[in-house]
């Protein structure tokens, strides 16, 4: 897997492409959704072509997002299973946040925080898709379902957006080098050893 002495392949193109399709469609769905979330952000609708336009296309942005998450599920679901080390890691996640990593189990290709984000987004997407479909066609759906969806859709969206805020922070400012892993697909060996030691050992064993 090591493509040169100085580079370790982190994500294949078949992993990076769905990730960035998800990112784009998510940002579109989130910003157009936020326009309707509060009148203070309704100006966002102008950025995306006006209120009627975002009403029409937000659901399609969501559909693209949901389909792409299906691809990500296919790529990663197996690797994202939490093992005993991960559970241990999660109990001490607050120490990871303050760079005090003594006693933290060594992460594999994904650390337990990344795995949690993965599962939170998978469940959130199912809920967003189901409740979004109900809101999409108000005149075809029973009223009780609509009254539930109107509460579920934005609640889940907030959880999902909250997770993504932290995710973007981690992937850019907080963990230098991670961004290139998802853009160009490779990282430095030192990066891999430091952030994902178990994974680094696995891929350098052979």
């Amino acid at each position, binding site marked *: 897997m090591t493509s040169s002495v100085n580079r370790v392949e982190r994500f294949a193109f078949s992993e990076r492409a769905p990730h960035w399709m998800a990112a784009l469609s998510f940002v579109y769905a989130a910003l157009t959704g936020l326009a309707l979330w509060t009148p203070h952000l309704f100006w966002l609708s102008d950025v995306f072509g006006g209120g009627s336009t975002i009403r029409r296309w937000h659901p399609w942005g969501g559909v693209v997002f949901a389909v792409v998450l299906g691809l990500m599920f296919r790529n990663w679901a197996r690797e994202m299973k939490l093992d005993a080390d991960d559970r241990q890691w999660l109990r001490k996640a607050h120490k990871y946040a303050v760079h005090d990593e003594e006693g933290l189990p060594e992460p594999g290709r994904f650390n337990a925080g990344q795995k949690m984000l993965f599962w939170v987004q998978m469940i959130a997407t199912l809920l967003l898709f189901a409740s979004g479909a109900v809101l999409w066609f108000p005149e075809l759906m029973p009223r009780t379902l609509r009254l539930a969806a*109107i509460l579920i859709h934005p609640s889940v969206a907030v959880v999902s957006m909250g997770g993504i805020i932290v995710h973007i922070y981690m992937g850019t400012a907080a963990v230098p080098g991670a961004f290139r892993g998802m853009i160009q697909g490779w990282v430095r060996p030192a990066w891999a050893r430091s952030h994902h030691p178990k994974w680094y050992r696995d891929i350098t064993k052979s």
Partner: protein
Amino acid sequence: MVTVAKLIDTTTCIGCKACEAACQEWQDQPFPVGTYDGTYQTFPDVRHDFWNLIKFNEIEHADGGLSWHMAKFQCMHCVDAGCITACPAPGAIFRRDNGTVDFDHDKCIGCGYCITACPFDVPRLNPITQKVYKCNLCSDRTAVGLEPACIKACPTNCLTFGARDDLVQIATDRARTLREDGKASAGVYNPAGVGGTNVIYVLEDAAHPEDYGLPNDPTVPWTVRVWQGPLKWLGNAALVGGILGTFFHYIRFGPRHADEESS
């Protein structure tokens, strides 16, 4: 400005549909082709192009007797209007100074939240324009001192238009008269659950508004209230908190560098 209202005295409605025709005429809506179900009711329900419906209900009594209820149905112009609470497009649904709940169709985006939030199930989406329509109490007529078209057309004076306070009084008096005449359960329909409505009914059997096609105890649904109330605050706090939290994490703890690497 005084709050205006419409009084519908169902005891004197003969079901002639003059108000339906007048509504279509004034709103310049051609009479639509729809489902006719063989009763004395024009369509099964109000439509985006048909805002004023005389609901027909045949009620069987315990003693074998029969009542035919004719009850005009349209937007109730609620004092506490679920549609306004739900609407995400600023100014698309608004309250006029005279209390009327009206739509500004240039601002309506067709999301349909009002359809979900309305306790009376009144607003309807036009699939072509993707905008929502309902009775506006002929706001273009009332603005120049005219009564709504339905009121003008009614041949029996079953419909009255005027200051809300006056009409509540008239309705109360009329219900009392009916009770004195032996209609023991006659009463006024002005449901408190939505803060009262600017369309008020006199019902011969006020204990059973559903027999007239009216909900028994309409309220703005609690999910709509939670969604547009506490959830907004919680959600905003969570999102702003997330952004500020990551920022302050960065300036307090900084990035986590790989052992021998900086970029």
